């Protein structure tokens, strides 16, 4: 028995080395990029794609590892973005130039009723909601805390009722649309369709993070690496293993004594927190928040990125998001491809679903497995006990 376990452990060990190698390489490239490229315009663009990569991680965590297809991840991304943008808006010079000594968002002043008090407390009915956002850290904290709270309440109710599969997808899809409508509808508070623009810069210890600055790139890139390692650690714990078991067979997991809903709620909520964090970073890099973050197409795009990269692999989904967006940006500069791109990405998605359900990451894993087998020569893995 001892030598058979040894031979079945070899490809595992090879996989693990390849795995950590890829992680190390990815982190080195992401953090080392500014040394190779000093075009701040491109760095800013790539920072946005890294944010999408973080969304890929969030999707892989909930879809790949927990088996929960969330078609409304944009909800948490959007909440994170809006919370951040509200604080940064109040720090913007546009909020101080309108003849008030306290910051008031310009759009509120433009739409104020004649004679209304130009103060956040009462310029319109909902404006008091903005008061705590005068502290930048409140907005930044809420960018993660609010998605966590919303996700916790939402997932507690649906997973306790044992809603699963396509129904979760439908509920999350409907919810993101609902919140999008509410935000557009609450025009006096949220600036509706126009979103929040002309934002100030993230300021930490007196240092202003101009989006077109290498330091801002490092904030995004460093955050991505941290989130990647955190998610990786989570799935490698026993809780992560049990989570995967609830994905494969929730009934079996229940009969082993696990409260399946608790595991689903925990990882769904973590995934939402990551999406909220991504929303925060996006606003820091892109300087706006808009209801389009909660468009269905955006939430579905995230799922496509993860599917192409490999939903069962955190780094696969992350790379999928970064690569697709980088290619898209390059391609859509050519007029011919601009419209065709959507078709191309649709085609790639269909092909991946049909022929490569584990995405690029699955392809890479098969390759290392094949290499490992070749190295060991004619010693195929024992498949079954005879």
């Amino acid at each position, binding site marked *: *028995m001892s030598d*058979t*376990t040894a031979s*079945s*452990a070899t*490809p*595992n060990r090879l996989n693990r080395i390849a795995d950590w190698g890829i992680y190390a390489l990815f982190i080195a490239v992401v953090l080392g990029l500014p040394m190779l490229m000093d075009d701040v315009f491109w760095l800013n663009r790539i920072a946005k794609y890294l944010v999408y990569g973080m969304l890929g991680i969030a999707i892989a965590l909930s879809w790949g590892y927990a088996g929960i297809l969330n078609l409304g991840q944009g909800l948490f991304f959007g909440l994170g973005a809006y919370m951040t943008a509200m604080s940064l808006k109040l720090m913007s010079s546009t909020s101080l130039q309108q003849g008030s000594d306290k910051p008031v968002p310009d759009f509120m002043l433009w739409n104020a009723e004649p004679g209304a008090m130009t103060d956040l407390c009462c310029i319109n009915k909902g404006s008091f909601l903005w008061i705590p956002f005068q502290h930048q850290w409140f907005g930044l904290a809420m960018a993660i805390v609010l998605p966590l709270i919303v996700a916790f309440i939402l997932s507690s109710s649906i997973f306790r009722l044992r809603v699963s599969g396509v129904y979760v997808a439908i509920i999350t899809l409907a919810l993101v649309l609902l919140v999008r409508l509410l935000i557009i509808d609450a025009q006096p508070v949220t600036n509706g369709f126009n979103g929040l623009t002309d934002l100030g810069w993230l300021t930490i210890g007196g240092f202003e993070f101009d989006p077109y600055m290498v330091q801002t790139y490092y904030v995004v890139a460093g955050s991505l690496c941290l989130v990647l390692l955190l998610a990786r650690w*989570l799935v490698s*714990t*026993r*809780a992560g*293993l*049990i989570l*995967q*078991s609830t*994905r*494969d*067979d929730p*009934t*079996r*997991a*229940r*009969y*082993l*004594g*696990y*409260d*399946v809903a*608790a*595991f689903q709620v*925990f990882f769904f909520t973590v995934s939402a927190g990551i999406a909220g964090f991504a929303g925060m970073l996006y606003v820091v890099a892109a300087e706006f928040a808009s209801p389009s973050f909660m468009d269905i197409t955006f939430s579905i795009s995230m799922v496509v990125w993860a599917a192409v990269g490999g939903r069962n692999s955190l780094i696969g989904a992350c790379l999928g998001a970064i690569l697709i967006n980088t290619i898209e940006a390059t391609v859509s500069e050519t007029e011919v491809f601009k419209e065709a791109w959507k078709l191309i990405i649709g085609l790639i998605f269909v092909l991946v679903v049909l022929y490569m359900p584990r995405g690029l990451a699955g392809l890479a894993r098969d390759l290392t497995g094949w290499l490992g087998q070749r190295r060991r020569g004619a010693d195929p*893995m*024992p*498949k*079954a*006990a005879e």
Partner: protein
Amino acid sequence: MAVALSIDGLTVDFGGFRAVDDFTTVVEDGELRVILGPNGAGKTTLMDLISGKTASTGGHVHLYGTEITNRPEHIIARHGVGRKFQIPSVFRDLTVRQNLEVAASGEPGVFRNLRLHMVAQDRERIDRVIELTNLGPVLGTIAGELSHGQMQWLELGMLITQQAKVVLLDEPTAGMTQAETFKTAEIINALKGSHTILVVEHDMAFVREIAERISVMHMGRLLAEGPMAQIEADPAVREAYLGSGGIH
């Protein structure tokens, strides 16, 4: 001897149809009890009621003196009831070893499992199960790729790893070859004494191989209870089986 499982007047009423009707029995600690009965007698439903899958509408189930009637499945499992399904139910995308590791965690909650690592005790338990079930050569294999028999043994192995005190087995030899059935009987016989086992089974050769006491169910009720010889001679049992061709 201590009582492991006491079922008292257990009833479930599906809108007028009583799948299990006033069923009472006492299973002692370390006993192996076979539940026999024609199709539709309520055997699987009985297991559903004990393990919490279906809520009963009357009666009580006690496990070592603790009432477990109609508790959620995972709580009943935590109290020490393990269940094997008729269709093998394992984690198909995890390896055999991972399947056993999931079963080995003694902690139900999320946060404890973030910090919990495999301890030597878990590993020993898993190793013993691997030996008992002959799964050693396939530890690295994805469970979905196992043969039917191996999948059944893995599921059995998970119940043992889980340290279930009372094990419910629903047709553990369904779809098995003769050699596999024999191996399964061997595993179950090895569990006798250390575990209390309830088996639903149709295969009479297999029942003879493992049975101590038998409860016969018919139309949701307990028809007869006793050792094999007594059951085979029971006229009421013969009567009940007449429609399905008798015991053979």
